[in-house]
């Protein structure tokens, strides 16, 4: 069975500049141990890690692309496809579930469609982000493991804002506040 062609994507001008700037910010020639900080810096600037940017980063760091890809797909906070809306992380781990996270997740599903799954889980981060209705929702949301704020359970992070003792309405308000038109 032939597989879909999946050629190396050339970096856009903006992506190249982001990579070059992040490396310049180190002040020294990049070493392999700069990889994760550089991936953070790229994602902070671009919102995600486009494949072209990763190719350019691998070239600039003199690292094999498969190694960079292997690292990028390992971490749940690194995104390998563009967010299609305001990013919402909802803790559904044990302490939050005991304080209503299961109901909360249910309510959010009704509003925003099913949550996305960690790309590294679904292999091929290349394949994620193709979800149907969810990818058109204005909120790009996922359930996440314990966020370490259990004293305020249930908790969520909406558009970068940490929310404690949260409800679906509270999340919607925070998303409006952070620019999402949810």
């Amino acid at each position: 069975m032939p597989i879909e062609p999946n050629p190396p994507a050339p970096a856009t001008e903006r992506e190249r500049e982001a990579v070059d700037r992040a490396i310049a910010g180190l002040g020294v020639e990049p070493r392999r141990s700069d990889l994760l900080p550089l991936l953070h810096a790229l994602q902070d600037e671009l919102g995600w890690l486009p494949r072209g940017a990763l190719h350019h980063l691998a070239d600039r760091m003199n690292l094999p692309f498969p190694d960079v890809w292997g690292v990028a797909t390992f971490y749940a906070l690194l995104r390998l496809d563009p967010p299609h809306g305001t990013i919402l992380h909802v803790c559904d781990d044990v302490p939050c579930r005991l304080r209503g996270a299961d109901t909360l997740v249910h309510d959010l599903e009704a509003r925003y469609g099913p949550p996305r799954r960690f790309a590294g889980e679904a292999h091929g981060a290349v394949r994620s982000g193709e979800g149907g209705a969810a990818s058109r929702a204005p909120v790009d949301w996922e359930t996440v493991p314990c966020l370490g704020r259990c004293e305020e359970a249930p908790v969520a992070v909406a558009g970068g804002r940490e929310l404690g003792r949260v409800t679906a309405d509270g999340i919607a308000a925070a998303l409006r506040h952070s620019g999402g038109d949810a």
Partner: protein
Amino acid sequence: MSIGIEVDGRALEADEGMTILQALRRAGMDAPTLCYHPNLTPVNVCRACVVEVEGSRALVPSCSRRVEPGMRIRTDTGRVRRARKVVLELLASSVDTSTAPELAAHVAAYQGDPARFGSDAVRVDEPLRDDNDLYVRDYAKCILCYKCVEACGEDAQYTFALAVAGRGFAARIETGADAPLLESRCVFCGNCVAVCPTGALMPLIEHRMRQAGEWDPSRQHVAETICPYCGVGCALELHVQDNRIVKVTSPADHDVTRGHLCVKGRFGFTYVHPDPPSR
């Protein structure tokens, strides 16, 4: 320097720097292995070779742990047998083992029953990657032993076309963003194919013949020769079926190759036949 160890109550001499597995094998004993390869750095990930070492809370991988003076090792306790059996069952329940006789034999030796996890147990679900003229990748058969990654990288080829991507049960061997081999760094030396223990990586000719029901090791013989291409002098084993070369390997214990070849030695034999049975 020789050091004394004890295995299953029996005093053994081992050389300093040896692994437990090497000491076992020299004494005529053994442990099942899957990710171990004599010419690759032990990654100790399959955990089939675990043994009990006195003073160690968890079991210890014999393929990588070096012997120490006075080490007391047990290879046949209930704990060891249970761990090995379950590890082998777990593996066999998760992948297609149809071209992995080694794994199947280990499972049988430990009376394993991979089916007991249920017919609905999730398996590695990957399409066959048949994207070039030399070899196919069938990751539904992959046990993630890392041998191909090592052979492609620092242990032999220094090409670094392969790495592990993803995480957990979804971790896979990858070319990076799943690029087809022709668009990856691959140089088609086939050294990954040579070390694959499950047939997940397979020469295209063998794959085609198996599909057609023509692959028959009982009708094959091996002719040893030296590679004709350059002056290095790599030892070749020509696997011949019905007077045609169907596969080329090199002995893992050969001084020159250590089992590794280049694209010409491994795949460049079809010129021998006027009408090669390729695609």
